[in-house]
Each structure stands twice: as C-alpha cells, then as structure tokens.
C-alpha cells in the first residue's frame, strides 16, 4: 500500500487546524476529507471509504471517542488515530484500558510538526516501504 491510495477522514473542531493538517497531509500524498464538525463527518462517512480516521478528542457536543464509536458501527475495520491538545495524562486510563480493546494505538499530542504527523499516520497504516 502506498500513499496515493490512503484516504484519511480528519475531524478537528478548530477550522484553522483542520485546514492546515489537510494541506500538510495532502502535500505528503494522502487524500484527506476534513471536517470541523463531527456530525458532518458522520453523515459523510461510508463503509470501506476511509483507510484511517484522524480525530481530535476534545470537541463540543460529540467528542472524538464518541464519534469513533459511531463510525466503527458503520465500518468495523476502520483504523483510527486520536489527536489532542489536552494533557496526555488526562487520557492515561483510557489509553491503558480502552485503547488496546478497541485496537487503537495512537494518541498524538498537539502541537505536532507535519512531518511527525505524517510518520505517525504512516506507522498506523503500516507502509511496507
């Protein structure tokens, strides 16, 4: 699998960040659908369409975990990386106990450079090259 086929669904309630990540990831060969609103993202979500979800955790109305659970019901196999600007230890319990059960590996911390984000996502997608 190479970059050109990887489609990412990105949800971040900060429009500036959603846009910056979209541009940055597309520069690195990903195809990105970005939403600043999880409900909009959900209504655009289709089975088998996305290789990876990149979800901000702290969002008003519906947080990243809840959005993921709803998407997982539609597509059980979709992979996910969570990203947060909060203190990491806040999610320590969730990371240790719930992540392994859900098959989630990554909790990415903001702020992050685009190159580092790209390599984290590539790890998740397990590129052969």
């Amino acid at each position, binding site marked *: 699998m190479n970059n050109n086929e990887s489609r990412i669904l990105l949800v971040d309630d900060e429009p500036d960040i959603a846009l*910056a*990540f979209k541009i940055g990831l597309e520069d690195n060969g990903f195809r990105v659908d970005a939403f600043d609103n999880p409900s909009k993202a959900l209504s655009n979500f289709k089975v088998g369409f996305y290789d990876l979800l990149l979800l901000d955790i702290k969002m008003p109305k519906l947080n990243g975990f809840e959005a993921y659970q709803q998407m997982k019901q539609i597509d059980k196999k979709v992979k996910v990386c969570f990203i947060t*600007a909060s*203190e990491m230890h806040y999610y320590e319990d969730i990371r240790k106990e719930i992540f392994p059960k859900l098959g989630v590996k990554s909790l990415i911390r903001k702020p992050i450079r685009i190159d580092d984000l790209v390599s984290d996502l590539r790890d998740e997608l397990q590129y052969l090259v």
Partner: protein
Amino acid sequence: MYIIDGERFLRVELKEPQAENFSESLGRAVYSNSKRSVESFKSIFELLWNERTLNEDLKRADKMQKEFINIASHELRTPTQAILSYSELLQKHPERKEEMIQAMSRNAERLRKLTDDILDVTRIESETLMLKIEPLNIGDLISDIIEDYRNQIEKNNDNVELHYYFEPKTKIIVEADRARLIQVISNLLDNALKFTKSKVENSSGSIHVTAEKKDTENGNKKQEVIVSIKDTGTGIDPEIMPRLFTKFATKSEIGTGLGLFISKSIIEVHGGKIWAENNTDGNGATFTFSLPLSEQQQEQEQEPRLSSSNLTL
C-alpha cells in the same frame, strides 16, 4: 467510633492494646476523674475535624488546579499548533499566502490574549496583582470606551446598538487603577457584544450601559457607583450560572474563559462587587458592578449641605 455533632461526623480509631474489648478500651481511654484529660480528648477531636476539613479543601483545590492546568494547556496548545503548521506550509504554498498569514495572525492574537489572562490569573492567585490607584471620573472613562466600541461596531457592520446613560454633569470619582478598570469594562462589553451578535442573525440587538451614584445599602453613609451592562443576547445558561465568575466558566468559540474571573478579582480588590442575572423579560442578561466612590468626592459633596444649613440660620 463515630463522633457526630450537629453538622459533621468523624470516624476515629482509638488504640488501647491493654484492653480486652472495645468498651474497655473506650472506658480506659475516656474514663478520668480529671477534667484536663477530657478536655485534651476534646482538643484532639477538634484537631482531627479541622485536619479533615483542611484535607478535603486541599483535595478540592488540587483537583480544581489540575483541571485549570488541563484547560489552560489545551487553550495554549491549540493556537500554537495552527501557528506551527502554517509557518511550515507557508513556503510551500505561496498561492495561499494571504489566507495563511491571516490564520497565523489570528492565532497569535489568541495566544497573546491568553498569555495575558493566564498571567493575570497567576498574579491574582498569588496576590501579587499590582495596582496603580488614582482618582478617575468613571463616567467619562466609560464614555471613551463606549466611543471605541461604537466605532468597532460600525466598522464590523454589527447589528447592535450601544446606548450609554449617564448624567454628564454629575462627577463620579472613584479611586482605581485606570488600565484594570478599562479591562473590566471592556471584558463585560466584549461579552455583551459576543452574546448579542450570536443571536439570530437578522434581528438587531442592543446593549444599554448605565452608571449612577447610589448610597450604599449598609447604612454607613458611604456612596458608590453602580455600573450595569444590559444586553439582549442569548442570556446566561442556568447551568453555568453558579460558576460564571470562576476559572471554569465555559467559553464560546472566542474568548479565554478567564475574563469574568479576572474582572471579579479586579472589582473586589477595589472594594466593589460584581454580579450577573438574566433579564426578567427573558431577553439577554445584565452584568453589574459597584465601586466605592472616592472619599474626597464624598467630602466635597458634604460641604454644600453644610453651607445651606448655615443659610437657614
């Protein structure tokens, strides 16, 4: 053993290894024909009460502090991420230069405001807030601020009317730090504007500001100024009301969430009070603060009264 009084209870373990059973140990521990011994048990229990209350207060404060740090760090990291990313992307995307520079500018401003607010909160909490007190004519001060806001409203084409009622001839002098007073009034106006604009777009909104002299209610013959800012906005969510002036008041998309906490601290350190309520007509909210009038002015005003009583003689 549980020790219970009218409002608290405490669980205590008394160890008396020589005793055979509980009653014996209690008996041995408490039995005494010396009043001093009983008094000393009483003081031990008092100490334990206080320690427990202190511990609970400490735990609560610690939890609040951790939550504050979490919220603050989220608010700091978010605009930092935007600035970081756009500075990386700018070179590669000259065609989007305008848009990216605006985004960076927006987020830098957000960071600047947050830095100021967090530092203010730190100063307030450590009681190192420095004030430069001088006599100020608050009526005129508010006038100037209103003018700026009217210009801003016009410039942004906001559909909000700003009214200011104040008797220009009456001098209302307070002893206050000018910059901090401006900070409070601006914070309240910013909020009023924000919540009035966010209501249904087509309707127009209004903000009414008043400043008037009043005698204080505690009968000490002092006077104060009452400044109120009434808006026709979305009103205050009853859920947020109890923590409105704390550091944990939620914010809208813009704003740091710390403004009201800082405003309250500034007003209180000047000897005043601040409060808020939803308007009785269900349309928006009113924020009010009071400040004691300068002693000088109150003295000046006493004099005319004296001379008129002289005249009657």
